[in-house]
């Protein structure tokens, strides 16, 4: 996951988890099944048009509201490779890191359809359309280790094995 390149889906501030996956579909934890209803009420074309590797760019407080892990699971099911936002709601942040969906806290100017290149190791995002480059602070070591381990499940397995 050192470098990725993907197309932007642009969102605003306070994208809540009810928007990401409406509550009526919370009857499965399967990312593929959830993916078909992602952003159904606010962006009805999203689930049909999203492609593997696409990147979501939000603004403030992305993922606010319910604790439903179904939200990042739905995004993984859609093939989203990374979510970039100025700030994230905390449970969405935890859930994403725990299940291996990369998040970047960074204010990036991008419009729908722009192509971004993300260099995780060096903390750089290039908007290939505008030519502008953005720098972000890498996650704290503990969380990077969690992501590198493949998420909290693998981390927990290792801990259980060493106990």
């Amino acid at each position, binding site marked *: 996951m050192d470098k990725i390149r993907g197309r932007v889906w642009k969102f605003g501030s*306070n994208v809540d988890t009810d928007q990401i996956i409406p509550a009526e579909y*919370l009857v499965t*934890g399967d990312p593929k099944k959830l993916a078909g209803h992602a952003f159904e009420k606010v962006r009805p074309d999203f689930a049909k048009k999203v492609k593997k590797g696409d990147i979501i760019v939000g603004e*403030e407080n992305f993922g606010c509201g*319910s604790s439903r*892990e179904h939200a990042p699971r739905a995004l993984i099911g859609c093939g989203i490779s990374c979510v970039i936002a100025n700030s994230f709601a905390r449970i969405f942040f*935890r859930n994403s890191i725990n*299940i291996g969906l990369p998040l970047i806290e960074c204010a990036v100017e991008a419009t729908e359809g722009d192509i971004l290149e993300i260099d995780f190791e060096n903390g750089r995002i290039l908007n290939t359309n505008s030519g502008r480059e953005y720098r972000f602070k890498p996650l704290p070591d503990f969380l990077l280790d969690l992501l590198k381990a493949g998420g*909290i499940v693998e981390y*927990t397995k290792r801990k259980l094995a060493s106990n």
Partner: protein
Amino acid sequence: MYNGMTIAEKILAKKSGKKKVEPGEIIEAEVDYIMVNDVTGLPAFEVFENFNVAPLRDKIVLIPDHYVPNKDVPSAEQAKAMRIFAKKYNLPYYYEVGSSGVCHQHMIEKGFAAPGRLIVGADSHTCSYGALGAFSTGIGSTEAACAMALGNLWFRVPESQKFIIEGKTRKYVMGKDVILHIIGDIGVDGALYKSMEFYGSTVESFPLADRISIANMTVEAGAKAGIIPPDNTVYEYLKGRVIGEYEPVFADSTAEYIETFSYDAIEIPCTVAKPYLPSNIAPASELGDITIDQAYLGSCTNGRIEDLRIAAKILKGKKIHPNVRMIVVPASKEVYEQALEEGIIKVFLDANAYVSGPTCGACLGGYMGVLARGERCISSTNRNFIGRMGHKESEVYLANPAVVAASAITGRITDPGEVEHG
């Protein structure tokens, strides 16, 4: 120089075996309880089976509440998965439909929530137990499974903010209005990643029910926890309920808060949050032109006996407006029984309200009160996001139970004072 610790810091330090923790630090801490509901439970149980260990039985609480009684076949399968998991591992704290209620109310009534405890739950409103002086916070399903196996979890120690509310409230103003007012002031990300601590004579004079409404909605400001220092109100409530011992935790006088906010309670009116954010507030008295189709009284925010009592007082001898259906959902079996005993249920029935057993159902647009296109609901719940209670073009206005009851009578958003004098 030695700085003291806030309540959040002290609890996290104690539970991680450290003398002191600093905001921003990532720690691993022992949790007292891990709660999941029927919606967040299923993914957790699937993950748990990866570990090939026995779960920590005495820490796990399973409460089906979102889509029970089952709304359809998939939700029935989901609820069944919880029952099977509980049986497979012989878990002592599984609560069948009919014996419990909305998970947070049940966690409080059954004595899981207590001062000084660290409780996690796969539901964002787990922060409610801060009303009793606990550090409690919402988590995801996968990490709930991990905590069921390990007994601990990672936490980033939050910065703390102090909120001081002083003085007497106006008539009909409740804890709900105080927290809506604060969210309106600081915004839906005004407490992002932070712990909100509440002080002042107003909070001290509030019964536990109002304190729970306040702690419950701190997540709508983005908070990790919302904590009220425990006092006699809490200790008295816990007598005969609490499981095991507990140790109250208070902030040091030298504790550091990154921000302090002060409010004069008398300036807070009955407050309504308009669509589509809980921060979008206005006084109920200024929204009198907005007609409603539904009035909803219930939820972990405002489904307690005190909430039902004030609504019944306003509705007594009156009828729900013919253009409105009112739905009343007591938050638990205990609340339901108490309401029956006090004659409150009869008042609702006489007014033509629909009364159901406890469920989260309509609060999140699941079932039992979903809104059609263009419909508007005044609701004692906690979220008014786009499509939260149904169709994407429906609207939710958040308010306290008195405003919900008054509005149900007039058919439009109404300050309770207006009905009283009318």
